[in-house]
Every structure is written in structure tokens, then in C-alpha cells.
């Protein structure tokens, strides 16, 4: 531990010899993606069409967005299990308040983004001031939000004006606009994590929050920031899902709570915090999307798809043995 305090903790852990552990993990996920592509190319010739890849790129968007927020909380050694309920609540609010009126789109979306951020910050407050484990705080918050969503409506509600669905389905030169925007957001967040003080403090807090505090880093503010960010990206996902489905549903987000953690960890961010790259999360989301795509091509029944997904997760997370333990 004392070594951690003496070396600058803001630097993400790097192995000097050879490629870094982060890089190895990225290469591994890429290799898995390539393997799936090869299998797809062998099994069906339609798999290699550009349209198929464009579809996968589009379909990964929602998961990538939630997982981005989740990555930030996990990097600080926390977790946000309220994202699913938050997406549910915010999606019914989005479509319920817009209700087909195009004049309402902008104010409602801004309000939803602000609301999501605020709820996330509230999570952060629970973690910081109540000093309760993030898992419990966000779980409790998730239950409350799900209840409120069901109080608001118990069935799909509202509708969206014409053109709002272009957020989810819009394409320029065959490439999904939403997907491209998401990739761009990842680049921006990665730059933020890499090149700003606050970004590096996020890694430091996750690596050893005690040491970070002793070094005078604003640990509490950073924790508020990451949970706020997680709430913000949950709000973005909610709006995106409304755009995709045309209405909000009170259980729209239920599956995202646990699903959002999968790409994060498959991509190499340690649940103990402080290590891993945000691009791993993006690749993790692409991996899951392309796996689903391949299994659909193979006409694999949904049941077996679940089994395959579980096995891929097991394989991906158990390949790097030495990553888990600190020396």
C-alpha cells in the first residue's frame, strides 16, 4: 500500500514491459469479435454485408450508452444498480410529457437529462454522506424509481412527434447517427479521463480512495460526479429508447441494470476500481451486439442465445488471471 501512496496514483497502472494490461484486454476483446466475424463469414454469406455491420453498430448504441455511465462508477470502485429503473422512469416521463407535441421535445429532453443527472447525484450523496455501500444505495434508489414509474403509468404511455425517431434510426451514408455520436462521446470521455486532473482522480479514487484523500484530492466531489454522469447517461439512454420504440414503457430499463455491468467488466475494467479502459466498454458492447447478431443469423433459439451469452461472459472474464489481484 505504501508503494501506492509514494508513486503518483493518478496514473493508471501500467506494465512497463510489452503492451499494457489494458491494451492486452482490448486486443482480446477485438480477437473475440474477429472470431465471431470469421464464424459468421463461414456460416452465412449475408453476414459479411456492410448493412449487417451497420445494423450491429446501431444496435449496440443503447447498451454502450448505459455502460459508459456504469464504467465511470465502476472505475471509482462503486457500482450503479439504479440505472435500469432510472431508464424506465425517465423513458415513461419523456414520452408521456412530449405526447406527440413537437414543441415539447426540446424542453422535455433537457429536463429529463437534468433530472437524470440530479437523481445520479442523489445516489452519489448517499454514497458519500450516508456512507452506505454503493450497491445498497443504488439498489434502494432503483426500487424507489421503479415504484414511481409504476405510479405514473402501468402501461406504455405517450407518443413521439414525426422525426423524433431519427435519433435512433437516422443514418448518414449508411452509418447510424446515434451509433456514431455514441462512439464520439466515448472518445471525449476517454480524453477526459486521460488528460484532465479530474479524470485521473477518478482512477486514483478507485485505486485507493484513502491514499487519494490523503493526497488532498477532492474524493467526494469525484464520487458525486461519476454518479451524476451515470444518471446523465441513463437519461440519454432513456431518450434514445423512446426514440427507438416510439413510446415509454414502465419496464423498459429493467434488463439494463445487470446488463450494463457486463460490457464494462468484459472490457477489462476491474470491479474493484481504478483499472481499465473505457474503450474496453465500447468494444464489450460491440462484442455482445455482434454475438446476438450472429446467433440470430444462425436461427439459434433465444434460450440457447442466453446460454451462449453467459458462456462468452465467463470466457472473456476468466482469460486474464493475473488482472484480478493486486501485487
Amino acid at each position, binding site marked *: 500500500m505504501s508503494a501506492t501512496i509514494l508513486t503518483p496514483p493518478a496514473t493508471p497502472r501500467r506494465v512497463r514491459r510489452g503492451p499494457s494490461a489494458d491494451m492486452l484486454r482490448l486486443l482480446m476483446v477485438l480477437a473475440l469479435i474477429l472470431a465471431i466475424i470469421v464464424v459468421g463469414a463461414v456460416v452465412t454469406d449475408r453476414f459479411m454485408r456492410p448493412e449487417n455491420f451497420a445494423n450491429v453498430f446501431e444496435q449496440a448504441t443503447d447498451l454502450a450508452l448505459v455502460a459508459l455511465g456504469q464504467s465511470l462508477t465502476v472505475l471509482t470502485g462503486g457500482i450503479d444498480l439504479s440505472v435500469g429503473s432510472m431508464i424506465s422512469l425517465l423513458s415513461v416521463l419523456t414520452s408521456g410529457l412530449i405526447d406527440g407535441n413537437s414543441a415539447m421535445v426540446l424542453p422535455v429532453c433537457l429536463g429529463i437529462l437534468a433530472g437524470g443527472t440530479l437523481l445520479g447525484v442523489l445516489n452519489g450523496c448517499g454514497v458519500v454522506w450516508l456512507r452506505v*455501500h454503493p450497491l445498497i444505495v443504488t439498489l434502494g434508489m432503483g426500487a424507489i424509481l421503479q415504484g414511481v414509474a409504476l405510479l405514473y403509468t402501468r402501461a406504455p404511455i405517450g407518443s413521439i412527434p414525426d422525426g423524433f425517431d431519427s435519433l435512433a434510426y437516422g443514418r448518414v451514408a449508411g452509418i447510424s447517427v446515434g451509433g456514431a455520436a455514441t462512439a464520439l462521446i466515448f472518445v471525449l470521455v476517454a480524453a477526459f479521463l486521460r488528460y484532465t486532473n479530474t479524470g485521473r482522480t477518478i482512477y486514483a479514487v478507485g485505486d485507493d480512495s484513502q491514499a487519494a484523500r490523503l493526497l488532498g484530492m477532492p474524493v467526494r466531489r469525484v464520487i458525486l460526479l461519476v454518479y451524476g454522469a451515470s444518471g446523465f447517461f441513463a437519461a440519454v439512454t432513456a431518450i434514445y429508447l423512446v426514440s427507438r420504440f416510439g413510446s415509454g414503457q414502465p419496464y423498459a430499463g429493467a434488463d439494463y441494470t445487470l446488463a450494463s455491468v457486463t460490457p464494462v467488466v468484459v472490457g477489462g475494467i476491474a*470491479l474493484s476500481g481504478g483499472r481499465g479502459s473505457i474503450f474496453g466498454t465500447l468494444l464489450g458492447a460491440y462484442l455482445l451486439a455482434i454475438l446476438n447478431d450472429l446467433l440470430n443469423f444462425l436461427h439459434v433459439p433465444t434460450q440457447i442465445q442466453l*446460454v451462449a451469452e453467459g458462456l462468452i461472459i465467463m470466457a472473456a472474464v476468466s482469460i486474464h488471471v493475473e488482472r484480478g489481484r493486486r501485487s
Partner: protein
Amino acid sequence: MNGSLLAKARGVGAAKAPLAGRIMPPGFTSLLSRYGIYLFMVVFLLVAAVAAPSFFSRGNLSNLVLQIVPLAIVACGQAMVILVRGLDLSVSSVMATAAVVATSFSGHDADIPSIVLLSLAIGMCAGLVNGLLVVKRNVSPFLATLATMIVLQGLRFAWTHGAPSGLMPPLLHRIGAGTWGFIPMNLPVLLAVALPLVLVLHRTTLGRRVVITGGNPMTGRLLGYPVDAIVIGAYMLSGCLAAIAGIVLGGYAQIVDNWVGRGFELDSIVAAVLGGFALSGGRGNVAGVIAGSIVLALAGNIVLLIGLPVQFQIILKGVVIVFAAACYARR
């Protein structure tokens, strides 16, 4: 209880030493953190008594216990996993699988031995996979058990083709939903699970070793305990108890779908944490877990008795989780 031993053990190889909770003289805070859940339980019972006199009717009470027992059984297993610094998200999937297995036979009482054996075997296999992934491959428990949960889900759906058919054998239905007078018949199942667990964990060397290993695995290793076996054993026990709970809960409903036990993975974690098990491992006692399960169930029951819309059940549950944890389950 074993504070001094733990403190010594932590001193050996401890990197971070979260000693505060144990070394402190038994002042108000530490009393609250140890007995807070019982306080909470009593307050809830009083609230229920004042708000809705019908709460203490025999019918409501025995029905409440019938609902608490499956959760308490799962939570006991979950608590053992949390004790060794893990989490088990696969319990709900194991529960549903056990219940589905139980309905896949002819529905006569003669099937019960095979049902129980097969379910327990499935639960323990799931636990074994979890444990091996965590211990041998160093996968984080959250993800290892999540993957097991998904795989089991898929296998279950493949096995049932989406819709389980058949009924629970009558005897299992009676155990899950019946009462002797006003004593719920599933209560003995909980006692049969919890009492040995209490005795082993809090009164034997093995139990102490588990607690020490959970508090600091390195210490356990230095003291020569079979750390890997202890951790794997905890996961297998959790899978086993989840299978038992699945059969009991399936018996309560009698007609089983693919989602028996949905939500129990998170509820059981909450019950264990409310009961005083720290997610950082090495702390907690089994009686608290049962009290935690009772508090969770009470939160739902009170809402219905007061006559609030059913959605308030989840909201109140969320409030209770955060508030109770903030009161006495701080990190």
C-alpha cells in the same frame, strides 16, 4: 464475540485494517450496528399494529411467515457468500430451475426424493461453477454469478420450451402453503436450515475459520486454512439453499412459471446486509439475516394493510433499504 481473535488475525497480513467497528468499546454506535435490525423490526411491528389492527390477525401473520421463509432461506446462503467477500446473483435462477424441475415429474408425492436430490444437485453444481470461477480463475463474484445466472436461465428455457407444465406434488404444496393451526408448515424448513448454520458458524472452529477467511483471505492462508475450499463451499451452500427455497416457493404457488424467485437475488443481498453482513466480508450473524428478511417482507405487507396503491410496496422497500443501511450498516 470473536473480536480479539479477528483483530489479531487482521493484524497479521492486513493491508487495510478496517478495525473501527470491532475494536471500539461497546458504545451506542456499535450496539446500534449490531442490534439495529431488531430495533427496526420492532418499530415496524408497532407501526403495523397501530396502522392496521388486522395485521395481528392469525391469517395475516401466518401468511406473512409463509412469504418470509423462502426469502430467509436464500438470504442465509447469500449471507455465507457475502461473508467470504462474494455475491451470488445466480440464486434466483437456481430457485426457478429447482421449481421447474419439481414440476417436470408426474406431480405425485412419490417423486419428492428425486425432485429434492436433483434440485440440490443442480444448486450445488451452479455453486461449484461460481466458486471455481471466483477462486481458480479470479473472476469477480458479481460477474461469475451473473454469467451462471444467464446460462441457467437459458438452459431452463431450452428445457421447458418457454412454458413449464405440470404441478408441484401435493405434499410440497402443503409444505409451501399449508399451516398447522396457525403455524406455517414451511417454518420447520427454515429452522432446519438456519439452526445448524448458526451453530456451525458461531460455535465451531470451522465457522470461525470461515469468518476469519472472509475478514482477510491472506490471514486465512497464512494460518493454513483451506481458503479455496471455504470459498467454494460457501457458493455451493448458497446454491443448495437457493434450490431448497425454490422448491418451498414453488410449493407456495403450486403452479410454477419460469420466473419463480425473480428479484430474490437482490432482495437476499439486501436482507443479508440489513442483517449486519458487511459486503467487505468477515462480519455478520445469521439471526440478523432472518430479521432482515422479516423487515423486507413487513415493508410490503404494511403498504397493503394501510391500503396504499401496490406500487408503494417497491417505493417503501427502497426507502427502507437506504434508511436502514444508513442507520447501522455503514461501510
